[in-house]
């Protein structure tokens, strides 16, 4: 009990000293808990809303309408009490029709939309929120309104469509051949796939509406979804297997609601995992602050410790006193962090809202409040906070062993211990077995915490390895640069000389401050560098002649007219037309391709990356084309391209390199494609390397001319036009060919940029906690040397220095500290971003002076601000009062 009593007495007397200790832990725990709480709430919501996200218990999906036999299978299911809903999703162009709100220059006459046709049973699960809050049936079948001569068809749309086209409820839209009355706004759609990318706003129409629009032609890009709702208590798996078997001939994909959202779940899991690791970095930076606080405290308490030992306290007792004190403060900091984390998690969803096409978090009903699922993240956060406190406290507390009771007699007790004056390995305790073992145990402990937070050995160990490396680099470079300052020729500026003197003085904890702030700036700068490189890759490196538009779903009988319309509008620019058809893999070398659809998300985690890649290639839909010549940006790496003009007898296929590798395809392998029920077998003639960043129409599979004769081909037209011609061209094409959709490359890239920006913002927001923790670590270090600074500043004053001069010395010291820390951080982030770009994204790294200079400026801003806040009050102190007490 003595330990507890003494710990309390010591804390009571030095609470100011421990404010920073407390804050450092609270910030780290707060960041971690906010991320973990958010992740667990999202996870629970995804599981809870799985049926709603899929729209049913079972989904049957295909890229073509079901055969008559297939429809019959569904009819028999209906007879067994299984409810079905039919949904068709496709991309289409919407055009303003008739009068409406005045058209401003910025409003578009035509707009690409994601069209969804539903029947009266939709939605089977979840809630479709509409404004006005009428039934969907009523809004899709408005009464008493006429569009042209016929009764109006209704359409409910996403609000962004109204804004972009300057429309309001009651206005009319032309989609395909049909005219729709806009009767409502879709506020929330339960089963809109939570994708980050969308081509346009949602428009929901009835099945009659879709039919009237006449958009679906042979080969049109459409996703047909049949949703099943089973009677209560029915097991899903048997029905799922039965449907799969009975619809085998229709080449459909059948999935149950449990495995419906693995992508969303995995994306959110991974995002949470990496944000969590950044949170852990903030906690570890805070831990560094704790270590520095404890180190300074032990130095300050040398006399007290010596007295305690004199009156009979053994080392173990004294260590326990300060360990109890640290743990109690850690508990308080952790509790504050938990409360902060609970408040903070409410802010995270707003950062991520724009990442998804729909407000997926609202759709999932993710609430920021506490619930049963909050328990685990809170406990985990608390344990991480406490263990971090203990791990970072143990090492500096070992110094207590070296304090001899005889030290009480020595006048120089508060200057340097013998160990600190020794060689570097003595200074770092490398000749002390206990210190070395403790250091290793601390590192292993921190590694354990990282693995626990990361949820995976490899990621956790990589994280702690990277962090340790960063700390070592910052330490070595910091020591070297600061050491270099001493060796500089004598500086003429008095303030600069004093500033450098303050930095290089032993016990000033300069390197500790450098590490804390350096790590934080490294993370923020790395995220910015990677984001810039990605944006540059998709935006700035776009070739000048990259297409402006992709016109899709051009029917074979429309190609001549399409070329004519485009040429007339653009003054003779000829669009490039590529034939294409959708297919799936049927057999490879005679063996039926088995797509493992039953695996659930958890099993997937266990699979190797290669297995997942293979599954992805085997199960995906392939857009096939036939070409006479090897397209631009493609390079044959194996085999030969077919001879131009020679259609041959056997269909040949050229396969993209990565796909061939994943699926084990070689020259001579035979791949059979299922094209809407009909099969085409082709022999692999060549393997290609594709430059996917070329912004041309690129393909995994290219067949030899003649191979796709008779298949329901459509064409994609690409064209590059100057910006002034973009809108007129789009409007002319939509007017002439209502079934053709115009995908504007610039819009897609903007969309990508926006998503990237939001993700990067979320990461930087959490990384900001690292910087905040770094700032407090610096504040803690300054507080620890406050008295020394005060004493020196009053002596300088007594010798005639002005407040301005002393202020300048401090400012220069902090700016220099920021400059050194920032320079190392900039170097580290450049190296780190290079690793990420080259090895993960396989992109070239480029020098980004703006980001690097901003990072340097940010570091200097932080050090000068924190330094100023920490020391400006010293400037006003009266010398006599201080010196009298000496």
């Amino acid at each position: 009990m003595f330990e507890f009593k003494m710990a309390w007495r010591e804390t009571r007397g030095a609470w100011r000293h421990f404010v920073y200790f407390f804050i450092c832990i609270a910030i780290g725990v707060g960041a971690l808990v906010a991320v973990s709480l958010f992740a667990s709430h999202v996870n629970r919501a995804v599981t809870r809303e799985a049926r709603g996200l899929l729209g049913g218990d079972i989904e049957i999906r295909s890229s073509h309408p079901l055969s008559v036999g297939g429809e019959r299978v569904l009819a028999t299911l209906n007879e067994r009490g299984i409810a079905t809903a039919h949904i068709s999703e496709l991309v289409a162009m919407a055009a303003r029709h008739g009068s409406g709100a005045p058209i401003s220059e910025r409003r578009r006459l035509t707009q690409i939309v994601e069209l969804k046709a539903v029947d009266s049973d939709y939605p089977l699960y979840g809630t479709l929120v509409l404004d006005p809050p009428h039934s969907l049936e009523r809004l899709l079948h408005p009464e008493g309104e006429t569009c042209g001569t016929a009764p109006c068809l209704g359409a409910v749309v996403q609000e962004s469509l109204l804004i972009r086209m300057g429309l309001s409820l009651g206005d009319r839209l032309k989609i395909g051949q049909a005219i729709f009355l806009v009767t409502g706004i879709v506020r929330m759609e339960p089963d809109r796939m939570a994708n980050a990318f969308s081509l346009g706003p949602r428009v929901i129409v009835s099945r009659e509406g879709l039919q009237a629009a006449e958009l679906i032609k042979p080969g049109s890009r459409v996703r047909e979804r049949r949703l099943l709702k089973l009677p209560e208590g029915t097991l899903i798996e048997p029905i799922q297997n039965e449907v799969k078997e009975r619809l085998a001939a229709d080449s459909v994909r059948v999935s149950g609601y449990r495995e419906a959202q693995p992508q969303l779940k995995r994306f959110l899991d991974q995002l949470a995992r990496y944000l969590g690791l950044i949170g852990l970095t903030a906690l570890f930076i805070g831990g560094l602050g704790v270590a520095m606080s404890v180190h300074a405290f032990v130095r300050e308490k040398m006399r007290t410790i010596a007295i305690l030992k004199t009156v009979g306290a053994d080392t173990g007792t004294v260590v326990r006193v300060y360990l109890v004190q640290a743990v109690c403060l850690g508990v308080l900091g952790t509790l504050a962090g938990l409360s902060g984390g609970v408040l903070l998690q409410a802010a995270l969803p707003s950062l991520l809202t724009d990442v998804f096409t729909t407000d997926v978090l609202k759709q999932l009903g993710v609430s920021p409040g506490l619930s049963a699922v909050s328990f685990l993240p809170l406990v985990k956060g608390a344990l991480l906070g406490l263990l971090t406190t203990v791990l970072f406290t143990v090492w500096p507390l070992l110094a207590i062993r070296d304090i001899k009771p005889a030290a009480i007699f020595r006048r120089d007790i508060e200057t340097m211990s013998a160990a600190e004056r020794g060689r570097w390995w003595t200074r770092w305790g490398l000749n002390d077995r206990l210190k070395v073992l403790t250091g290793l145990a601390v590192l292993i402990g921190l590694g354990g915490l990282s693995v626990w937070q990361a949820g995976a050995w490899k990621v956790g160990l990589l994280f702690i390895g990277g962090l340790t490396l960063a700390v070592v680099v910052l330490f070595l470079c910091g020591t070297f640069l600061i050491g270099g300052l001493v060796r500089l020729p004598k500086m003429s500026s008095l303030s600069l000389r004093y500033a450098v003197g303050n930095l290089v003085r032993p016990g000033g904890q300069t390197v500790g401050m450098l590490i804390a702030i350096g790590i934080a700036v490294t993370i923020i700068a790395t995220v910015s560098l990677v984001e810039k490189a990605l944006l540059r890759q998709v935006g700035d490196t776009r070739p000048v002649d990259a297409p402006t538009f992709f016109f899709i779903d051009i029917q074979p009988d429309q190609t001549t007219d399409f070329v004519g319309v485009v040429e007339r509008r653009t003054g003779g620019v000829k669009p490039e037309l590529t034939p294409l058809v959708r297919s799936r893999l049927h057999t490879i070398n005679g063996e039926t391709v088995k797509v493992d659809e039953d695996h659930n998300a958890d099993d997937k985690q266990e699979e190797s990356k290669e297995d997942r890649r293979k599954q992805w290639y085997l199960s995906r839909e392939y857009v096939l084309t036939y070409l006479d010549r090897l397209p631009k940006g493609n390079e044959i790496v194996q085999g030969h391209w077919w001879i131009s003009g020679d259609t041959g007898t056997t269909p040949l296929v050229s396969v993209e390199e990565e796909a061939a590798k994943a699926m084990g395809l070689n020259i001579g392998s035979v791949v059979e494609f299922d094209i809407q029920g009909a099969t085409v077998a082709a022999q692999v003639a060549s393997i290609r390397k594709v430059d996917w960043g070329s912004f041309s129409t690129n393909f995994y599979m290219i067949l030899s001319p003649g191979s796709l004769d008779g298949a329901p081909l459509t064409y994609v037209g690409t064209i590059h036009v100057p910006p002034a011609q973009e809108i007129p061209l789009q409007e002319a094409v939509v007017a002439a060919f209502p079934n053709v959709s115009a995908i504007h490359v610039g819009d897609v890239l903007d969309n990508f940029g926006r998503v990237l920006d939001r993700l990067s913002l979320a990461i930087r927001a959490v990384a900001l906690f690292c910087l905040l923790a770094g700032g407090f670590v610096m504040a803690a270090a300054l507080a620890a040397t406050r008295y020394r600074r005060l004493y020196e500043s009053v002596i300088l004053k007594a010798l005639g220095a002005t407040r301005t001069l002393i202020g300048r010395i401090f400012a220069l010291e902090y700016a220099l500290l920021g400059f050194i820390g920032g320079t190392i951080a900039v170097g580290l982030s450049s190296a780190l971003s290079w690793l990420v770009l080259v090895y993960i994204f396989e992109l070239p790294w480029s020098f980004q002076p703006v980001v690097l200079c901003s990072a340097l400026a940010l570091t200097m801003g932080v050090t000068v601000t924190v330094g100023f806040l920490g020391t400006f009050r010293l400037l006003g102190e009266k010398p006599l009062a201080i010196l009298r007490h000496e």
Partner: protein
Amino acid sequence: MIGISHVSMRLTAGGRAVTILDDVTFDVPAKQMVAIVGPSGSGKSTLLGLIAGLDRPTSGSIRLNGADITDMSEDKLAQYRRAHVGYIFQSFHLIPTLTAKENVLVPLELAGFPSADDRAGELLAAVGLGDRLHHYPVQLSGGEQQRVAVARAFACRPSVLLADEPTGNLDSATGEQVMELLLSLQRDHGTTLVLVTHDPFIASTMQRVIALRDGRVESDDVRHPAD
């Protein structure tokens, strides 16, 4: 009670060896009051520190209550001090963050003394500080601080009390009060007292005076204060 045998202490200062104590040998029987006198730098305080086990001699041995403390580990020494030794410093060395009472409580709590709280109160009352229990060192005068230190030294009823110039930082009137207090407590507890002093008057109140010069015993004069 205290046996000092051929104790030497050498330190290195500024790169050269300095002999602080040179072959010092003497015994102190139980309950004796001994003054150690000598000029500054003669090794008085170092000798007292060695008797308390606050440091180790370079050579020689020190026995306390029959136990050789020179070979004891740091922690064993701490436990030994806790049980047998009280120490009073010239500059008091109270823990600044603790109140007067808490300073006295520290050794009592370390020793697991039953009703430590009451004992600390009684001791402070005995040294005339019954009304200053909750004052911090900074709120006490030098004399009051030294009285707290005296109370702390006697807290665990040590068999040996070591006092290093206990009045050195006090004015003569206050110093006299503190000495009176110290001696009365010594009498009440029957403690062996070894006291380092510069003050010939204080030395004259002791039963024995050992004079040190340049680290060696110059004289060892046993007498009775009444003489």
